[in-house]
């Protein structure tokens, strides 16, 4: 047997370090091209949708076509603000990581847009099951920056008592569900949450996100199956940012069809959206939420975007992809696109933009000053050692009381 004769098909990334970031294989319909079916449409009538793409902002930054959500300017400005705040937050936190203040950090650069748009299109009572790459969701829901930072610092005011690595937030008060370190697991949990909402006769829905890479986990299939069978009021989102650490999306199935097409096998609408187009994402989410609240069950949304930075602070993307890939991404930067749209509407200026950036940077800096005043992981104060034994169970069982004693800490 000669392995060289083998013809095992192994996908490869379209470009690697030293190569040009070639997007010629990325074929996109023009903005405004795809029709917008009624929210109550039968699934069988929209089976072509996963293969196209919902786009609203055209190359001239105009909002065009039937998916234009016709948002008021306040909402657009609000969206821009949250996106910019997220970017400022990410930048500050990654710097803190580089300075040794955080053990780890994950940036969301280039992906702020869809998260913010979706949060604005949802209601505060809807539960969010996000990934680690969506600080924008906490920000848009109003979680205090200082609290987010304290979580990342594992300091004395960390609301998670030092138990999680940075970015695995949890903010119950704003219906932001605890993020797991295991990818994919929360997708079917969101479906259960949504089923309970139905059961209770409430009209809150759930929204869950999974990376295109993690969509290969069994949990994805469980979520789709349960959502379909029980017609759960949930929006299931695949964030296709093209990469899972060093692995190109083709290794998750992206070579042979769009991820949105997964919906077809469950009789569920599948929408594919330009994830860097604030308006398109808002409109698609609004459509799916309306459908869920109308009792028509779940929608799968593929958010087509690009991971601008390395996977995390532990990663160096230049080892496996070109340095200028994001710069050449055909769908651009969601912030610049929304900004330009607002400017073209006459509702925004370069000056206001700069001023807003400066304001938000300052807000982040102030928050950071306050956060570190509650301690850092390295230098403390940290959460008390006794906290290690709490919340394993609702009440401390005898063996944990004993172990706490053995460690020599008092409650």
């Amino acid at each position, binding site marked *: 047997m000669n392995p060289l004769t083998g013809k095992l098909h192994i996908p490869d990334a379209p470009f690697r370090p030293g190569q040009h970031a070639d997007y010629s294989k990325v074929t996109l319909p023009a903005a405004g091209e795809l029709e917008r079916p009624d929210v109550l449409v039968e699934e069988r009538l929209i089976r072509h949708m996963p293969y196209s793409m919902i786009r609203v902002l055209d190359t001239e930054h105009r909002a065009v076509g039937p998916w234009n959500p016709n948002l008021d300017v306040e909402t657009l400005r609000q969206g821009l603000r949250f996106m910019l705040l997220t970017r400022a937050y990410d930048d500050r936190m990654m710097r803190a990581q580089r300075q040794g203040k955080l053990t780890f950090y994950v940036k969301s650069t280039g992906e702020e847009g869809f998260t913010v748009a979706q949060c604005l299109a949802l209601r505060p009572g809807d*539960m969010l099951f996000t990934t680690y790459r969506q600080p924008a969701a906490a920000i848009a829901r109003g979680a205090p920056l200082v609290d987010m930072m304290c979580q990342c610092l594992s300091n004395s005011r960390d609301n*998670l008592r030092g*138990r999680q690595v940075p970015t695995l937030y*949890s903010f119950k008060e704003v219906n932001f569900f605890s993020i797991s370190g*295991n990818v994919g*697991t929360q997708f079917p*949990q969101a479906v259960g949450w949504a089923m309970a909402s139905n059961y209770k006769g409430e009209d809150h829905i759930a929204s869950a996100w999974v990376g295109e890479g993690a969509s290969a986990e069994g949990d994805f299939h469980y979520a789709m*199956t349960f959502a379909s069978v029980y017609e759960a009021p949930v929006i299931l989102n695949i964030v296709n940012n093209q990469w899972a650490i060093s692995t190109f999306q083709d290794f998750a199935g992206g070579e042979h069809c769009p991820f949105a097409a997964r919906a077809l096998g469950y009789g569920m609408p599948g929408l594919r959206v330009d994830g860097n187009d604030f308006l398109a994402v808002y409109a698609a989410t609004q459509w799916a939420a309306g459908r869920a609240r109308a009792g028509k069950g779940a929608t799968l949304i593929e958010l087509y975007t690009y991971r601008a930075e390395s996977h995390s602070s532990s990663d160096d993307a230049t080892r496996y992809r070109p340095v200028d890939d994001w710069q050449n991404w055909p769908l651009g930067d969601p912030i610049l696109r929304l900004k330009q749209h607002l400017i073209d509407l006459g509702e925004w200026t370069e000056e206001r933009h700069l001023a807003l950036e400066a304001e938000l940077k300052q807000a982040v800096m102030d928050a950071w000053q306050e956060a570190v005043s509650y301690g850092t992981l390295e230098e403390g104060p940290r959460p008390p050692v006794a906290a290690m034994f709490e*919340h394993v169970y*609702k009440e401390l069982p005898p063996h944990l009381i004993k172990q706490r004693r053995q460690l020599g800490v008092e409650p």
Partner: protein
Amino acid sequence: MTMAQALNSAMDVMLARDPNVLIFGEDVGYFGGVFRVTEGLQKKYGRNRVFDTPIAEGGIVAAAIGMGVNGLRPVVEIQFCDYIHPAFDQLVSELSRLRYRSGGQFWSPVTVRTPCGGGIHGGQTHSQSPEAVYAHVCGLKTVMPSNPYDAKGMLISAIEDDDPVIFLEPKRLYNGPFAGDPEQQSGRWDAHPKGEVPDGYYTVPLGQAEVVVPGDELTIVGYGTLVHVAVAAAREAGVCAEIIDVRSMMPLDIDTLAASVKKNGRCLIVHEATRTCGYGAELSAQIQEACFWSLKAPIERVTGWDTPYPHAQEWEYFPGKKRVLEAIRRIMEIA
């Protein structure tokens, strides 16, 4: 009542008391479960509260987690504990840790019922006993009743518990007590004192072992079907053994065990699961730690062998009366 009826009654009581209680799993709805444990509940409480699911144990547990977070109290059935493995990640990485990792913000009071153990010629995929694996996972409570009275009271406790509970049901005991002798017919629960089960609400607390038979020559520690085997073997050996039903593997009531072994100085541990890293190892380690100075003989374990549960050699695999008896004699012989 049989044990199956007692479990059914526990769910009936809780469905009636708490509108947040839901029951679901493979074939548990219309049909009432392959062991008939949920029989009649869908009819009584409606399809909204007692229903069938896809064959996706991971999905069942995941959905239950989400429901629990949203205020419900799901009681799910995994058809055989041999099929709980696809849900492993949801159980050990998610359900068990949600309260901890969220700093107490989120938690999900799921009860996972699942039949365990052998003795029904079910072969390697209808006979296993996974208690050690779940007892190793902090954040879960893991329990196993050995009779109808405990089954009902403990299941009600489990459903009311705000922590997740893995509730293991020795399937060989569903319809009658079984002392481990395949040549003999199973006994009848209605002739057993623990077969007397009140119709209404009552609880048996989790985390407490029970001295089933008091005795002062030897302590035998077991749970599930093996409790009945131990009682029969000790009787046949003519040894005045104190027999303790562990009932709860996590948390473990080590005080009751240690008090007995300190008194008796001899200890035999019995279980059906595979030996290496079985729950008996933990029992042995803790009893040794607590009772070292009282021990007159090595602590022994009689367990399933370190092989899959075979179909044809079931009764050579099963730690039956004969093997327990031999161990009792061996331990008692030591001066």
